[in-house]
Structures are given as C-alpha cells and as structure tokens.
C-alpha cells in the first residue's frame, strides 16, 4: 500500500503536438529530451542543478491557466495535461534573439576551435540563427589560451557563461576550483587555482561551446573526421560506459556515455587515457621472435607446433567473458593461471574510481566457475603471488597474456617486469601482447599480436556484476588473433596428445 503511494505518478502532457508520458513533478525539459525532442539549451545538464540562465529552452504554455509569458522549460515540472509549445512565434523569436545575444561577444574563431563540428552554438545557429548580423561594435575581449590545470584549456572569450563547469566543480567533485568573476558582460570563468580533481576533463565534455578544450585532444583531429565507438572502460572494475573517437589514422579521445547504472554522465581522467595504446606505434603487426635481444618477424604456426611440454597459460584479467569461456573450454584447469593486477590508489574515491584495476575480474570468476564447476582460488592461481608462481617451475613453455597496461597502471607495470624476470629461465615464454612497449619484454621469447579491448566484441562484468559490452571498432593490427584462436591452433596441431588437452575430451 505504502509502496504504491511512493511510486511517482505517470502523467501525460503535450509538447507541441506530441503527447509525452513522464513522471509527475519531473523536469519538463528532461522529459522532452528523453523523448527525442530537440530543444535548444546550453545551461541545463541532467547531471547538474538547474541554473536557468541561458534562456534558450523557452516554452509557451497553452490553455486557460497558462502564465502570460514564455518560461524556461528547464525550471518547470511536468504536470498532468499541460500543453506547452516551443514553436509559437513568441518563443521562436525569443530563442532567435537570445541566440543573437549569445553571439554578441563570441569570437569568430571556429576555424581554430576544437569544438567546431560538435558546438551547440553552431548547431543552434543553423536552426535559430538571425543570419543577418547587426553587430558592428567592438566585442568584449577576454583572455584566450589559458592553461587552467589538469588537462583543460580555457578560452574565456568563447565562453557563454552557462556555468555548467562551475556547477560541476561545486556539485559533483565539490572541489570548487572554478567560478565566475565580475558582473555583466565582463563576467568570466576563472580558476583561481589550477584544476586539481581527478574528474576535471568532464568540464570539457559538458562545455557546450569551445571555451573549455582538452589539452590532450587539442588540435589533433577535427571532430567530423571521427567516429564514436561505444564501449566500456577497462581502467578499473567500475566499468564506466564510454565512447572512443577514432578513425583510420588512430584513436583520439575517450568520453563518457550516459549510463545511469554505473557512471551517470561522468568518467575519471585516468579512464580518458585508455585509447592511447590502441593505435600506438608499438602495436604488434606480426609475430616476433626474440633473437638474443633483437625481435625479428616469424611465422606463428611454425613454432607453435614444436613447443616443449608441459605447458601453462597465464591469463590477464582484461579478456572478455567470451574469450575466457573459449579458453577454459580448451585448457584443463591445472594449466590455467592468472596474473592479477595490484591495487592502485584509494579503494573507492566515492565517485567512480576504484583501486581494483582488474576490470573483468568478476567475469573471469564467473566463467571459471561455469567451466570447471569450481570456485576460483586466487591464492593458488594468481601468479603475482609467490605461492602460485612456484607451480610454474616445472613448466617448459608458458603463454603469458600481457594485461592491457594503461598509463595510470604504474605499480602494475613494474610488478609485471619483476614477474617476467622471476619466471624460470629455461621456460619458453610466449607473450600474447598487443604492443611491444611493456616492460620486461626482453624476458620473452616470442611475441604474438592480440587485439585490444576496442578490437573485439565481448562482455565485461563490472563491480556490480552487470554485463557491459565491448564493441569491435577499427582494427589497428591486422594480423592480431584472439587468445583462444592461438590456443585452438595449438590443440589442432598437437592433436590433443600432450600439453594443452581438451578438458571435455
């Protein structure tokens, strides 16, 4: 009974000619946006408080009790039976003139502005622009090209003072670095101290214009040359939904995707670097053999058929659930080991970041249980621990799946080198790697190219045990094969006699 009362009532209202159903009392603009209606707006952001200053999302209410003037829909709530329009002459002329005001002091430097192509000023100008400029007066000049810390550049002149970034630092990170100083048209965004929070780059995403741009992405590519790959971040177990902007020249940036179950609208700065290894110069393009310190191209089939036995495989925690299942299907339990990444940073920073960098640990545990009907015991299977490593002493050839090292895995990178060093000298080490830039590469005898997380389809399980999908985007290493594919090659060539034998057979 009480539960029913708590549930919000769904009511119907009308936006232009479209009937929309939404929760009573919810935000009117959000309800419209959620239903795919295009409404011009700058200052409203669903993840932030309402400030109502850009005056673009005006609507006029139709009916008896309607207010006499158009009002901003971002500050209105949904109620039963109201009918609002944003295509009346009053509203269209208001929006047009407001856009004109937005552009009064906006510099015309779209040519060098990174936002060009995804700029809301450009977008709305196409729809609501006055087109006939009457501005011949001098514009107010403010400081351009300001480095305000972390990864963010500020151009105060391009700013339309929507205050989204100010609200972000005040409400989401609560670090209060940004503010708007002065009054009137001299008002400008200012950082009195450099941005210091780990989520600073989000202000670049929420900036509707080119005032805040990313130092990392700055001038690297025009946005219209890029395609977005919708995928999941493997920076930690949180598993934020992200999109990677890429084209055939490479990957260029990572931005968060809206996902209310995990990351809302945000992501951390570390996660924004996960694109860097996708198209790096170090990507392995073909199998390599270690010829006393010099790596030379080789044929994979050639040596895979002559590997000494017994064999073992050390898997990373960054493979997809599908890959794990295929691997476990091919390889008996006693030959499977794992390399678990060490924890880095605080356990949980109360926003998104977690210390556990083993992005698909839960997916791995799940598939392990499914395949071997046995709970994964990390103390005996984690090769980063001494106990598990001793079991590898008798192994003659060992496959090592190199984890996808992200720039912020500092501890992990050093540990991994030590780990490779500590493996028995006489054991043949075949690294299944995406690039040749990892530390300790000299300890490996062979390098086989594997795809990165953005070059394969698959599933991750995040910390909440929710399935998150990875999608295959542009492939930067043509010869890369997935880990199970290589393993299938061995089991085929060796006729399942020794070494890797089919678990089910």
């Amino acid at each position: 009974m009480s539960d029913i009362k708590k549930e919000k009532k769904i009511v119907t209202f009308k936006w232009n000619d479209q009937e929309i159903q939404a929760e009573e009392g919810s935000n009117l603009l959000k309800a419209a946006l959620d239903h795919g209606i295009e409404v011009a707006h700058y200052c409203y952001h669903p993840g932030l408080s309402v400030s109502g200053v850009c005056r673009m999302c005006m609507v006029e209410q139709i009916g008896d009790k309607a207010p006499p003037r158009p009002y901003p829909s971002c500050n209105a709530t949904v109620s039963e039976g109201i009918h609002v329009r944003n295509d009346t002459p009053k509203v269209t002329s208001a929006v047009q003139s407001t856009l004109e005001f937005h552009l009064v002091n906006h510099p015309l430097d779209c040519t060098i502005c990174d936002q060009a192509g995804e700029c809301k000023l450009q977008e709305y100008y196409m729809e609501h622009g006055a087109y006939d400029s009457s501005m011949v007066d001098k514009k107010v000049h403010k400081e351009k090209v300001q480095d305000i810390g972390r990864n963010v550049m500020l151009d105060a002149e391009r700013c339309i003072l929507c205050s989204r970034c100010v609200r972000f630092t005040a409400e989401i990170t609560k670090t209060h670095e940004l503010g708007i100083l002065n009054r009137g048209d001299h008002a400008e965004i200012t950082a009195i101290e450099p941005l210091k929070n780990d989520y600073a780059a989000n202000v670049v995403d929420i900036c509707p214009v080119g005032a805040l741009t990313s130092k990392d992405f700055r001038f690297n590519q025009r946005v219209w040359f890029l395609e977005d790959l919708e995928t999941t971040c493997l920076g930690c177990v949180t598993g934020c939904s992200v999109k990677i902007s890429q084209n055939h020249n490479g990957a260029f940036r990572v931005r968060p995707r809206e996902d209310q179950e995990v990351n809302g609208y945000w992501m951390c700065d570390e996660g924004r670097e996960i694109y860097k290894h996708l198209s790096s110069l170090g990507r392995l393009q073909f199998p390599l053999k270690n010829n006393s310190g010099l790596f030379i191209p080789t044929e994979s089939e050639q040596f895979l058929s002559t590997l000494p036995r017994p064999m073992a495989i050390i898997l990373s925690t960054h493979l997809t659930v599908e890959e794990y299942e295929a691997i476990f299907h091919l390889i008996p339990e006693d030959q499977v080991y794992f390399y678990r990444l060490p924890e880095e940073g605080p356990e949980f920073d109360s926003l998104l970041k977690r210390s556990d960098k083993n992005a698909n640990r839960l997916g791995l545990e799940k598939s392990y249980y499914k395949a071997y009907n046995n709970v994964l015991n990390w103390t005996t299977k984690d090769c980063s621990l001494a106990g598990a490593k001793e079991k590898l002493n008798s192994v003659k050839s060992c496959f090592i799946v190199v984890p996808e090292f992200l720039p912020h895995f500092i501890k992990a990178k050093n540990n991994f080198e030590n780990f490779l060093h500590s493996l028995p000298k006489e054991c043949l080490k075949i690294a299944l790697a995406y690039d040749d830039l990892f530390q300790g590469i000299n300890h490996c005898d062979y390098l086989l190219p594997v795809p990165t997380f953005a070059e394969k389809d698959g599933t991750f399980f995040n910390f909440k045990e929710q399935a998150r999908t990875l999608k295959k985007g542009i492939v930067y290493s043509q010869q890369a094969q997935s880990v199970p594919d290589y393993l299938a090659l061995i089991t085929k060539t060796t006729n399942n006699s020794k070494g890797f034998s089919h678990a089910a057979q």
Partner: protein
Amino acid sequence: MNSNLQPNFNYVLLSHHHIPNVQEIEVYEQAEGYSAFKKSLSLTPDFIKEEVKASGLRGRGGAGFPTGIKWGFFSKDREAKKYLLCNADESEPGTFKDRFLVEKNPHLLIEGMLISAWALGTQKGYIYIRGEFYHQAKILEKAITQAYQKGYLGKNILGKDFSFDLYVHRGAGAYICGEETGMISSLEGKKGQPKLKPPFPAIKGYRGYPTMVNNVESLAAVPWIISFGAARYRQWGTEKSPGTKLFSISGDVKKAGVIEVPLGTPLKNIIEDHCGGMREAPLKAVIPGGSSAPILTAEQAYKVKMDYEDVASYGSMLGSGAIIVLDQTRSIAEILKWTLEFYHHESCGQCTPCREGTGWMEKIAKRRPSVEKTSTPEEVMDLLNRVAQNMRGQTICALAAAAAMPTQGILKAFPEEMKAYFGNLKS
C-alpha cells in the same frame, strides 16, 4: 507639551520628522512611538494582515504589488522557521527616500517590522541596507540596540509569547541586490544574483525557508495603518492606489528632496508647489519613477497624476517614486547614455539577454562614425529598439526590462532629438 514634540499624523511616513532627536528611543516613545506595536500585540495576526490588505497598501519598492496580498502568500505556520527581510538596498538612480526615512526616524521602521513580524510570525529579521549607507546603518544599529534594551526586541517581547531578533546587514554596492531574490542570494553570502522563480521567496527564500521581503517604505507605513485603521488610510490616494507616498525629487527644480504626498497628486503640483518650480529653464522632460521608468515629455508631465495607474497610462511607471526633472538645456541622448552605462555596469551577468544586451545597447548608443559608416540614424534607432525589445521578458529578474524600457521610452518620446544625435555622430 511642546507641539513640536508631537507627531503630525497628517503624514504617514514623515509624521515624526520634525521632532528633533527622534532617532533616540525615548524621544520617539514620547511622541507616541511604539504605541501602534503595543496595540498590535493585542490584536490577532490575522486581523493585522486583513487590515493591511484592506488598506490597499502597495509595495513601495517599485513593482507596486499589494503588500497585504503578498503577505497572504506567506506560510501560515507560526512555528516554522521564517524570515522577514527589509529591503533598504535603495540603488535605483534618483531614489533616496529610504535613506531619508531611516536616517531621520529609524524607530518607525523597526516598529513597522515588529508589527509585520507579529502578523507574519517570523522569528528573525534583517534590514538589508546598501553598503554605501554606512552612517545610516550605524543609526539603525543604535536604534536596534535601544529597542533591545527597552524590550521591544528579543525573547518574549513585552511579556507576549513572541520573539523577534532584528539585525542590520550591509550590502556592498550592487544594484541587483535590490531585487528580492538577489537580496536573498546576497544575504546568503553569495553573489547577489537573482534566483529562478518558482519557488518564490514567500515559499522558499533565505536559506530555503519562507522569507518575506518588503521595502522600507511599505513596512514604515504599517504602524500608521494599525494605529488609525485601513479606512482612514484610504482617505488619501485613489481607489487603486490608496495612501500616501514618498517622492524623491531631484534634477532641475529649485528645491530637491523627499516629500510625502497622497498618491494621485498631479506632478505639476509637486514640481511647482512642493519643489518651488523649475530652476532656470522651462521643463523638458521628467523621469517619473527612477531610471527604469520611461521618460515623460513636458506635456505629459503636466497632465499626469502621480499614482500607479495614471503614470502607467502614459506608458511609464511610478516605480520607486524617484522624480528626475530635466529642463530644456538637457540633452536626452546624454541621459540615455548615462542610463545605459548604469545598467551595463549593474547587470549581474547571469542571463544572456541582459548580460550581453545591456553592454550592446550601450555600445550602440555610443556608436562612433569610424565604427558605423553605413547605417542611417533610423537604422541605429531601429536596432536599439529591437535589441531593447528582445531583452524584455527574457530574463530571471526585471533588470533587463528596466534597461530596455527607458531606452524604448526615450526613442519614442524624443525621436527627433535622437535622430539628430545619431545623425551628428556620422558627420
């Protein structure tokens, strides 16, 4: 007793102004001070609210919204935390009536606030006075201290189950803090930027609690209404604009200053009788309600009666009652430029139309021939009019409209002069 020490209740607001040292509570008490408050404690809050409503007292800050009706929107829960805020942030160009009132008779305001607090059930009050009025703030603070000593403020006032604390809060020089939500933001220690409505301050104001914001003059009129009743208050003024009003008169008149006259008094009388006529040259124009009010030509000024409706019928507004009188020697274009400079300086920078529009209008009004070679004066005036029109009704508060209205007013009332002005710019 010396009649000089007796209040003159033919005036509502300036009743005690002739009494020397009325700032001292003893003097004020002798002159029947605080008697209205004592009387009000014997009345029910609802009765006081009804009485104020019946008096038809209209908000004296500028908008002219009836105070009694505004009180009616206020939370009726007497136990709930509520605030009473007195708006003494008088910054409208031409206005100085509140300063005059507070300076001469601070206890009248305190008494008015006490009665209002009793009627509205607020526990705490602040007088937000503009930062420049340092001495006036000190006068108020002294008066408040005296009132505390006499037991008019504090806990269980005069033995009643009624407590009220009153403090003075100094602003720091921002016109926009005269807007009620801007004032609340400023009181909260933020930039004085107006807040989105709804919610209205009467529901959710200072720190999220219901807050009643009233002008000094509105609150100071309450004691008289309680003493003598709403019916007698209505003896002055018109049906829709009852009572008396303070007018701050400045400009080219012989005697500038504050006067209290019934609403509906012809402007001609005010200029000629109360202010001793024009200084040197004959009348050219009058700004009847502070710089936000559209200008009236001499012809209109000699016809208009100073009440809310009649001034509005001439396309202007009574506003705060600041009358700026201009004679024939004055350049209207200069007035426009000064006005726009003021609004450009004072725009809080929140809403885009106002932030960009006020600056742009000033630039248009100051266009130089080197900038603008192709436009005719008519085109510049059209543009100015269009920009002003686009600003109106598009923003959170009324500052954009306050900048747009006088601009449009001047263009409408003195088209020939403005045309000549913009024409000369080209040559």
